[in-house]
């Protein structure tokens, strides 16, 4: 009973902290305290968090090396823009369509490719991402390589914040359940998992579909923030960027994915002032982190109530 009460109290505390973050940022935006530069980086940061957390579900928790995340992002971006800009539906319909289309793409690509393991899966997903890009380049209805311009900016801070919370909540809840344990057992030992009664293929597809769905959501938010989408934006380098965040944060740590996405966004923004040596510094930073923390910033650990409880308890 006591424990239940404490849980509710700390749950209330978390809601308060989140509400505070949301309100402070919202106030800073409306009061004009955050200029355009900071706002753009904030949006990038949130979109990167969604991308990293969702890819981490596939790469980190399920242990399936996917290099096609930008492809799902593209599917979501185009699907949402078709809904809002071309067909005139409201933003929420665009977001839903983005999730749906990307999840469907994840299913279609997941079922045949997830039989492959390791490098082979990586190459197959990489190829898939490129196929999406090339297909989009050749569809005249979406302007081919020129892309779609003049998308209305519908992505606002409440949408970004809500989408980010939803992504983290769904991934965390999924991972911390019997289904999540089944997913993680695939990463740990696929054969043992299968022999313990886990239908490994279907759990791989499940993780893949969820991961793709949130990548689609991120794509929709991206499209409606930056006014313009073109196939070239979603090339394999974008997939690698997301992968870097996941590995940097620690495979199998949602907290790590969030922290690394924030870190990479800030690093990229700061390095923009040094265009000549930008990529060198970026690479150097990654190499240094990987030498000293090869398991990523967080390893596979999470920051949770328990962690804070321990820190708190330790001080007493």
């Amino acid at each position: 009973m006591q424990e239940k009460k404490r849980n509710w109290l700390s749950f209330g505390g978390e809601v308060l902290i989140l509400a505070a973050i949301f309100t402070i940022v919202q106030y800073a935006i409306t009061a004009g305290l955050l200029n355009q530069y900071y706002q753009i980086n904030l949006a990038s940061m949130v979109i990167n968090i969604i991308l990293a957390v969702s890819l981490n579900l596939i790469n980190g928790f399920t242990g399936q090396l996917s290099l096609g995340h930008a492809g799902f992002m593209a599917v979501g971006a185009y699907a949402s823009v078709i809904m809002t800009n071309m067909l005139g539906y409201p933003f929420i319909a665009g977001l839903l369509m983005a999730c749906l289309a990307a999840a469907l793409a994840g299913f279609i690509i997941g079922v045949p490719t997830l039989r492959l393991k390791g490098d082979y899966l990586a190459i197959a997903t990489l190829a898939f991402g490129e196929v999406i890009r090339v297909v989009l380049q050749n569809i005249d209805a979406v302007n081919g390589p020129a892309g779609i311009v003049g998308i209305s900016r519908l992505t606002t801070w409440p949408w970004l914040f809500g989408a980010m919370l939803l992504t983290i909540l769904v991934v965390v809840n999924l991972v911390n359940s019997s289904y999540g344990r089944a997913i993680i057992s695939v990463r740990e030992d696929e054969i043992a998992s299968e022999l313990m009664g886990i239908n490994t293929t279907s759990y791989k597809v499940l993780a893949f579909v969820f991961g793709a769905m949130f990548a689609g959501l991120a794509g929709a938010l991206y499209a409606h923030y930056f006014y313009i989408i073109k196939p070239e934006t979603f090339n394999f380098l974008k997939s690698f960027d997301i992968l870097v965040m996941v590995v940097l944060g620690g495979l199998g740590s949602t907290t790590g994915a969030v922290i690394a996405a924030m870190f990479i966004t800030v690093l990229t923004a700061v390095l923009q002032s040094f265009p000549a040596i930008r990529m060198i510094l970026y690479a150097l930073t990654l190499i240094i982190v990987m030498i000293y923390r090869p398991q990523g910033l967080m390893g596979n650990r999470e920051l949770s109530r328990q962690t804070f409880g321990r820190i708190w308890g330790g001080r007493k």
Partner: protein
Amino acid sequence: MSIIEIKNLAKSFGGLSAVLNFNFRLDENELVGLIGPNGAGKTTVFNLITGVYKPDQGSIIFDGEEIVGRPPYNICARGIARTFQNIRLFNDLSVLDNVKIAAHKDVSYGLLSTIFRAPAFFRGEKQIEQESLKYLEIFKLADKKDELARNLPYGEQRRLEIARALATGPKLLILDEPAAGMNPQETKDLMNLIEWIRSDFNLTILLIEHDMSLVMGVCERIYVLDYGQIIAHGKPEEIRNNKQVIQAYLGEEVE
């Protein structure tokens, strides 16, 4: 009544035939040993039964149904669970989670309950946890439930593997060298434990073992495999005096 009946099973890798013309049956609640020299094909037989390998020919009737060609998770769901010769635990997960994963096939809540944390989720999780703890207690691992599986001593890892296999709720339990690497006292304890699980869970047990005291001590019948073929079969005392078996293990007598 027979729980599993294998007929004319054969499997070859490349030109090498690992199992040939393998016939075998187990009655309900029996405890049977499968022995044979290294490389005789014992583990291959286990892999064929559990669906890791597909046999080239032959049939395996388990509980009245043909299971050849079914995927391993389905065979497990039908009631065959196993352990591994070289331990395959989920090393980076806790002892408790290892057992919980095996209990997943009885999960009582759906994906939506999971994502929205509906009451059904908490009820189901509690049920899985209690169930899993029950198995850990049987194997005296309950006080180590939060340790990572990789940090357990060898003997306890072996026990955890059996606990995990039992958590899938099998009718037939297949143990691949359960006593490997254990000292005589641990082996003796394990023997008692195996006998106890059989009667308490009403299981049929098939085990591969090199430790002859264990095999001769607990098994009611023994099959001897050599070069992929059954060369002898019978009660422990018959096997002990069987010429062919002695020959397979020790080689031929020099005149």
